[in-house]
């Protein structure tokens, strides 16, 4: 047995040596004329990520995991299905999630082949209530903040109002820019502690109304609502700041090898036994994700009870350097 191990280690060492020699020392220049056809890098491709999103597994749906296929935007995490208008498409995908919990889910516009004169776009975005810099605890408050933050270039056309779409209550907020002759119609709801919003932008309000009417064909989860949307049912209950105080029975702080100064927002799902079953890094460098993953494997939580039963719970934990948020709102509706 020892002999076999010895042979194995010898072979392993030989392989590593050969591999190292084959690769050679990396270099920035030299005479490469002996290789007339060196490999090319792809162009206009992001190969070097900074702080980026990642997850502990590839099975659990992520907020940013939605896709447009067969002219339908489907997002498994939010339980959302939205059919695009004919000849509209997602030309460009959005950026990665931000370190304040903002997601560009889809950017829809008329396809290049579209022959008509329709001018408009639909931005589907989400803002979580775990890491938002805005002092709001639900979608209604976020939309009100958006209204209150409008600068003088815009004019409110319809203040935030509850509307019924796709058999759910949504908040609708319309504003426009007189100088640009553009209008923004925002329809928002709350799902799993995230504001999910549809932002219609265009010149033609009739077109925009028509697109909004088409939203009746979309499907939303039962929980969707302007101030409800706290998970539950087949998805985890979401609770802001659950990973605090007495809820955390065991914890270990991550040990970072490198000192960085970025916020590292982490969304976690805790199973019924109080162990972490899923980790989603909205924005983290790989070394940060590794250190936090290692630390979170030691965390144990008080199981979350709903109606006397233990249920899975989803929450956010901020590592790294958190940005300074604005003053907190008076209510905390996202906390059960």
């Amino acid at each position, binding site marked *: 047995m020892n002999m076999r191990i010895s042979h194995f280690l010898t072979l392993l060492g030989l392989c590593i040596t050969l591999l190292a020699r084959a*690769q*050679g*020392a*990396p*270099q*920035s*220049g*030299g*005479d*490469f004329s*002996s*290789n007339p056809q*060196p*490999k*090319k*890098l*792809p162009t*206009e*491709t*992001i*190969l*070097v*990520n*900074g*702080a*980026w999103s990642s997850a502990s597994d590839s099975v659990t749906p992520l907020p940013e995991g939605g896709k447009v296929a067969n002219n339908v935007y489907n997002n498994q995490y939010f339980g959302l299905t939205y059919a695009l208008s004919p000849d509209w498409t997602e030309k*460009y*995908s*959005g*950026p990665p999630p*931000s*370190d*304040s919990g*903002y997601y*560009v889910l889809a*950017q829809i*516009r008329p396809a290049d082949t579209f022959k008509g004169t329709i*001018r408009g776009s639909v*931005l589907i*975005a989400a*803002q979580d209530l775990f890491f*938002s*810099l*805005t002092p709001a605890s639900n979608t209604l408050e*976020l939309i009100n*903040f958006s209204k209150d*933050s409008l*600068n003088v270039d*815009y004019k409110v056309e319809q203040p935030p109002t509850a509307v019924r779409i796709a058999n759910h209550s949504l908040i609708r907020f319309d504003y426009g820019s007189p*100088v*640009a*002759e*553009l209008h923004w119609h925002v329809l928002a709801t709350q799902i799993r502690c995230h504001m999910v919003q549809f*932002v219609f*932008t*265009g010149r033609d309000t009739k077109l925009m109304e028509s697109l909004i009417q088409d939203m009746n064909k979309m499907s939303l989860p039962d929980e969707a609502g302007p101030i409800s949307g706290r998970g539950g049912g087949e998805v985890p209950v979401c609770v802001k700041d659950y990973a605090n105080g007495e809820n955390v029975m065991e914890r270990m702080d991550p040990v970072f090898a490198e000192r*960085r*100064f*970025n916020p590292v927002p982490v969304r976690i799902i805790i199973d019924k036994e109080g162990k972490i079953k899923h980790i989603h890094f909205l924005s983290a460098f790989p070394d940060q994700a590794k250190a936090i993953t290692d630390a979170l494997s030691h965390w144990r939580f008080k199981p979350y009870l709903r109606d006397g039963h233990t249920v899975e719970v989803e929450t956010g934990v901020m590592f790294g*350097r958190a940005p300074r948020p604005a003053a907190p709102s008076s209510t905390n509706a996202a906390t059960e």
Partner: protein
Amino acid sequence: MKTTKLASVFVFLPALFFPGMASAQTDPGVRSSTGVNAGQPFASVTASPNDLAFFQTGLAQFNEHQTVTGDNPGLGPRFNLDSCGACHSQPAPGGTSPASGIFPNIGPNPQSQVIANGVVNGGTNTIPYFVLANGPVREARFPFFFDQFGNPNPNAPNGGVEDLFTVSGRSDAGSCSLQQPSFNTAGSTNNIIFRIPTPTFGTGLMANIDDSTLLANHRAQGGNNLGISGAFNHNGNDGTISRFGWKAQNKSLMIFAGEAYNVEMGISNELFTQDRPLPGEDQLGSGLPSNCLNLARVGYPEDITHSGGTTASTVTSDVGLFNVFMQFLDQPTPSTTTPGGATSIANGRRLFSAIGCATCHSPSLTTQASHLTPGLSNATANLFSDIEIHHMGALADNVSQGGAGGDQFRTAPLWGLGQRIFLLHDGRTTNLLSAIEAHESNGSEATQTELNFDQLLTPSQQQDILNFLRSL
């Protein structure tokens, strides 16, 4: 028949609604009729004889041409050019890439003239393929190291500056013999990116904006409904927000100057104390050969504070003088009437804000009290930048600097844009429309805003925005 008529109406109406559609809007180009509107010191500097003398000495040092040995020693052994002012010259010292034939006709790309001007030896150096007489001054970087066969290795990030030229063959360089990096291989494998000089007008104001102001501005961007978020790059030592360079990787103008003196001109100084090899020579190799060290024969660092000086100007090191020069440079003066007239510019400014450009290109931020000169104190810096780094998708250069990833760039300050020739981080275009167009792509935070500009505005409105931008 009825259908045909109806169709005609539908075809005709949009043309009426967007009357400029047929005649496409155009970039007015570099503003030339208002004189040079940048490069002056603050009025408070002009009013102070000592400060003005300091500024003028800094300006002279900024424009001075360095040599390997002699009165202005230290150049090389690797460098991109021999003077700060040669690269930062459009439309005035402190600016960016110049050109001949475009106002104010400063001259051809000085990097294209280094052999003709005797700055490098043509027998030992060639002008890289990407340096063109009518192109921008460029700094080159290889995002990845090559393996021994000349294949770029995506598992070995590089990203450091690959200086274009060497002193080899110059009469004052002794036996130092260095090869230029393999630019042709890098080009043929797409393993090369470029940066052009950032203009330094108004940078003293940028340096004097407190972090709290930047953070408040960041928070105010929330709820923009445009797909924009943003983040800050931070200084690795004290953790405060860094702000200079294309990726906001440098904390201060002093660091910025010290690094540039070392990296771009090969002159060691009190901030960067060694002569700089290429990334491959230093990080993974043996450094510079001994016969390429101390070529100036003055020891290290080559640029120092002068204990024998008698005034601030004569005591201060070159890097210190560069810092003073940049700190005291006032922001560019925009035109209220050119191009396109006052109404168009004012309209363009409002449109710029309305469609979302101003979310990142923050029109102004206020500075804090300054110990340097009153002009920097509690001033309105009309920089049109939030100094944040944003994901810019296909503009990615795959160079990571500090906390900025390969696709993240600082929102380029737009002040002085009316008199810039080359646009975007690599100077790939001189056309403002192309630069705006490049803001949309997979993974870019600016896609929705660019769409607003490109698809939802009328050509007349687009022209107003272009006029406004060229008025800056």
